[in-house]
């Protein structure tokens, strides 16, 4: 009978490995639509960090994990000019509502 602690660790490692495999298999079968959505989201990453995760201490906000409705509200306010900005009012006016919906959905589902 192995030591219970070691047994737990071993079981944990197996669980993690299976979870990782599942995720990676899921991604491997990504559809064209998913690929296009990731690329759309990547257009924010130049300023807001890869996968919406900024460097530590960034004054430019991270987008990963932002609730979808919050993102939609911010983007709409930038686009209609009701929220002042340095750059975002100019960027949002170049995006369609469908593109903004894609970004909001993507980043809400991305881990912080």
């Amino acid at each position, binding site marked *: 009978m192995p030591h219970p602690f070691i047994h737990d660790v071993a079981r944990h490692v197996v669980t993690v490995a299976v979870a990782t495999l599942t995720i990676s298999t899921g991604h491997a079968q990504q559809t064209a639509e998913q690929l296009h959505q990731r690329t759309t989201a*990547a257009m924010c990453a130049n300023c807001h960090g890869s996968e919406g995760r900024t460097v530590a201490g960034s004054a430019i906000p991270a987008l990963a994990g932002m609730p979808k409705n919050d993102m939609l509200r911010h983007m709409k306010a930038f686009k209609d000019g009701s929220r002042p900005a340095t750059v975002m009012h100019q960027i949002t*006016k*170049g995006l369609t509502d469908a593109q903004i919906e894609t970004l909001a959905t993507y980043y809400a589902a991305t881990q912080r």
Partner: protein
Amino acid sequence: MKRRSFVQASMALGSVSALGSMVACATTGSIPKQARVVVIGGGYGGATTAKYIRMLSNYQIDVVLIEPDAAFVSCPLSNLVIGGSKTMADITTPYDKLSGKHGVQMVRDYVSSVDAEKKTVTLASGPSIRYDKLVMSPGIDLMFNTIEGLKEANTSGQILQAWKAGPETLALRKQLEAMPDGGVFAITIPEVPYRCPPGPYERASQAAHYFKQQKPKSKVLILDANQDVTSKGPLFKKFWADNYKGILEYVPQHKVVGVDAKTNTLKFEIQNDIQAQVLNVLPAMRAGNIAVQSQLANMNARWCGVNFQTFESTQAKDIHVIGDAIMIAPLMPKSGHMANSHGKVTAAAIVAQLSDMAVNPAPFLTNTCYSFVNDKLVVHVASVHQYDAKDKTYKTVPGSGGLSPAPNELEGVYAMNWAQNIWADSLL
């Protein structure tokens, strides 16, 4: 040196196979096991493409990045090194995370030739690498031979360009430091298109800021081959009038055709000669040499035509060209941010093509470009470029994009954060 490069390349290729089989075990995707993308050039465009092909393929496509330099040195912010408020270390990022974190195989070498038929690139050190897809992100080459005497004066280190950030950036800073107070620093600008439209005006502003603090009798002279300031014109000109009056002088329509290194003199197409203590001469530019040599520069023999949906060359199948080397779409700047955007659209197109998926019918690109008018105040220009399937080009969206209303400190903070985030997005 040659031997070391060869060993590095061989080791890198060996580990590509090892990594390829390791990844293949863990996945069931439709991407061919032998799929391999070679990327030439580790700037904003090439590094981003390499990283995003790995990410967007869920680490299934092998990527080899060929880059001669040991570390990435950013052109954006390099003018602050010349102005004295930043150091080379501040603008330098190592390449190790691309390999360590993302599994990109780094080969430190130049490419001596490309065989588009056999789909191979040959390294300067000898070995060849086979590719399924090739991405060229060679940046620009400076056409020194368009200005008489410039090649020799640059080789000797007397007249610098410092337009490719690196050793010349620091060397130009040292020339300004060594210049006696009361001297003149002259920067000359070629006709558009050239890399980083607002860059020369930012550089002139940085020199003026330095002189104002440290050498108040000195002058900055901008000699521009263009009709007027080519980017952020009203913003720069107002700031110069308000803050650098008597220090900075802007002179349009002056095209340099020759330099005399003995007397540090500029010769112009029309006007009289001008002498200055420090000369920074920017000649006309074209796509990086490997693209020209590979016959991809099919537009005016200077820039590479591409299919904008995929950035595949209009000249050669399965070779994609991105960044400053391409023939731009209307209002598309040659900038690092734009090259990063090109890289992502290209990475996605290549992942789709190698996976037998449809290429994105409606890609778009963003650009944000910050310029420092002193060590803290910044102005920006931003734009959004949507792909137009009918006209097969990118078009800026009416009503989108624009400029800062005036130089401001908040954007100075954002500019620094932009740099940190885009370096991480491209390299880490």
